[in-house]
């Protein structure tokens, strides 16, 4: 199978590269900061709490490790649930709740560890520094100190990451509009294929005298085709049903030109008609099939167009005979490449477009995208 992958696929490894850089940065900061935190508190425990190093390391080692694991789990949860794609308010709510939950768990762990090691709910350091206060207040104040660390962690992590997210989203948006502009140009140049246009006009001219009704229909179809093509730069997505209206007009015009050399078989599930696709996608596939497959064949052939929805995925197939041994892919690529690039930007990895040239006498273009 020959997969059509736009030049923009190069953006894929690039993105994972920045993701990896982010992961390294995160891991370094996470281990480094909690490590420093651990050493500061353990040293404090030895100096102020007057306990042997063994006990200090055990108490604060357990707490620091727990803190590291809890914050890491928090990061995992935020990533999986896509918190950073959320608007500011729900994001802040989630940040506050997670601060409270993580702090509470960590304070509990600190209390349990102290109980286990010293038989008292506070560390020796806190007990010695706060010796004038009752034990319950000591526990509370130690809890505040630990919580402050977590609050700082969450604030830093969420602040930093949401900034990056917003920046990335803007970048993606900019890329998308750039690609749309490019697609618009390509549409004007290729989809609004001058060869097709002038041949259609020539056909209309031939019909005017003897078959004026047919000529009128052809002019209407041509006008609709042009209007749709020109408008397709605006809307990102259209329903397949709307796109098929245009494709049908286009096919009628091509039938005028190719006469009995073109047969069309349509197999479109009614449920697929409401699925949304990038404008001109189906048109590009059909036009390629005719231009490179059926038109160069002396006796023409049958064009199969099918669309169906399977497990929340729209599957489009356009299949056509083609001249045997013509594996001249690069020239076929122009329209398909732009379509493929647009799909990638709109749907990411969820959409695919490939051209199957395994059969030497056939070409089948397949598109899958989320319905």
């Amino acid at each position, binding site marked *: 199978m020959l997969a059509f992958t736009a030049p923009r696929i190069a953006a894929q490894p690039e993105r994972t590269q920045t993701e990896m850089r982010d992961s390294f940065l995160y891991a370094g900061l996470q281990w480094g900061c909690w490590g420093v935190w651990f050493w500061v508190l353990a040293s404090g425990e030895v100096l102020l709490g007057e306990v042997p190093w063994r006990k200090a390391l055990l108490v604060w080692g357990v707490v620091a490790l727990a803190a590291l694991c809890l914050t890491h789990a928090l990061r995992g949860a935020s990533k999986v649930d896509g918190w950073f794609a959320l608007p500011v308010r729900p994001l802040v709510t989630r940040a506050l709740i997670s601060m409270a939950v993580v702090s509470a768990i960590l304070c509990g762990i600190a209390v349990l560890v102290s109980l286990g090691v010293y038989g008292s709910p506070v560390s020796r350091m806190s007990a010695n520094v706060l010796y004038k206060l009752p034990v319950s207040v000591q526990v509370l104040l130690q809890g505040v100190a630990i919580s402050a660390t977590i609050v700082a962690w969450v604030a830093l992590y969420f602040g930093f990451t949401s900034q990056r997210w917003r920046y990335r989203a803007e970048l993606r948006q900019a890329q998308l509009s750039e690609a749309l502009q490019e697609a618009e140009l390509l549409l004007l140049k290729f989809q609004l294929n*001058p*060869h097709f*246009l*002038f*041949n259609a*006009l*020539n*056909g209309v*001219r*031939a*019909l005017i*005298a003897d078959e004026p009704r047919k000529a009128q229909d052809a002019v209407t179809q041509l006008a609709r085709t042009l209007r749709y093509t020109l408008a397709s730069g605006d809307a990102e997505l259209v329903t397949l049903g709307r796109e098929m209206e245009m494709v049908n007009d286009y096919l009628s015009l091509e039938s*005028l*030109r*190719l*006469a009995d*050399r073109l047969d069309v078989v349509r197999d479109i599930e009614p449920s697929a008609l409401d699925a949304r696709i990038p404008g001109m996608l189906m048109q590009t596939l059909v036009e390629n099939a005719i231009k490179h497959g059926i*038109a*160069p*064949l*002396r006796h*023409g052939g049958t064009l199969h167009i099918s669309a169906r929805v399977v497990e929340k995925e729209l599957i489009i197939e356009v299949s056509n005979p083609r001249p045997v041994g013509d594996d001249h892919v690069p020239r076929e690529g122009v329209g398909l490449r732009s379509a493929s690039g647009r799909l990638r930007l709109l749907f990411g990895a969820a959409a695919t477009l490939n051209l199957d040239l395994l059969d030497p006498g056939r070409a089948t273009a397949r598109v899958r995208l989320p319905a």
Partner: protein
Amino acid sequence: MRALIVDDEPLARRELRRLLSGFSRVEIIGEASDVDEARQSIESLSPDIVFLDVQMPGGTGFDLLAQLDRMPRIIFTTAYDQYAVKAFDVSALDYLLKPIEPDRLAAALKKVEATTAPAPASESSSASTSASASSSALPLQGGASSPSASTTPNATRADGPMEQLFVRDGPRCWFVPLREVSVFTAEGNYVRLQWGKDKPLLGRSLIALEEKLDAKRFFRANRRQIVNLDFIEKVELGLGGRLHIQLRDGPEVEISRRQARQFRARMSI
């Protein structure tokens, strides 16, 4: 003028037929929808003029011309093909853009009539044909044939030797009058023509070409070359009794031992 219409689209043929019906001097003798059909029609019907579409299934109009041994007058028709149109412009070939404008068609036909004026003509008309013969692209009939041949009305008779070739090399294409070619040199399965300043490559083999050439004018000098005898400036005797020919605008050509005797006989030396 007897015309053949070559186009894969029935509607395009119908439209051209209708446009041509306004010209009483043009008689449409046939239609063809692809390269093979067109080649057969041209060989069997010998049209004076062919309206030739560029994009067709199974080969382009250029492919057709490259296969032809005898060239009718050609007017290309195309809807939109920027590369072909560029080639037409560079090479000064006649072409019409579809939808065809009646005025343009009239102008093109007038031009054809001017250059293919009936041959048994006065001094002035033969002067005009030989004048246009020097232009590289155009004269397909009167102009291409030698002055002696122009007394026959139809120079594209099927039995005579080939007078003219269509050659496409890169963006340029030419109708090359063969009598203006000084030497043909084989390059693999192709043949390089030495034609004035140009050296276009022809997609035929030297052996296939030799069969079609006028034996009175062209001589097989060696395994790789055929020379135009009209271009010989001098003949020298080289080492070992080999003959060397100096051509007027070409390189020196050596005559192989096998061919030397025949050459002496031809040139009576």
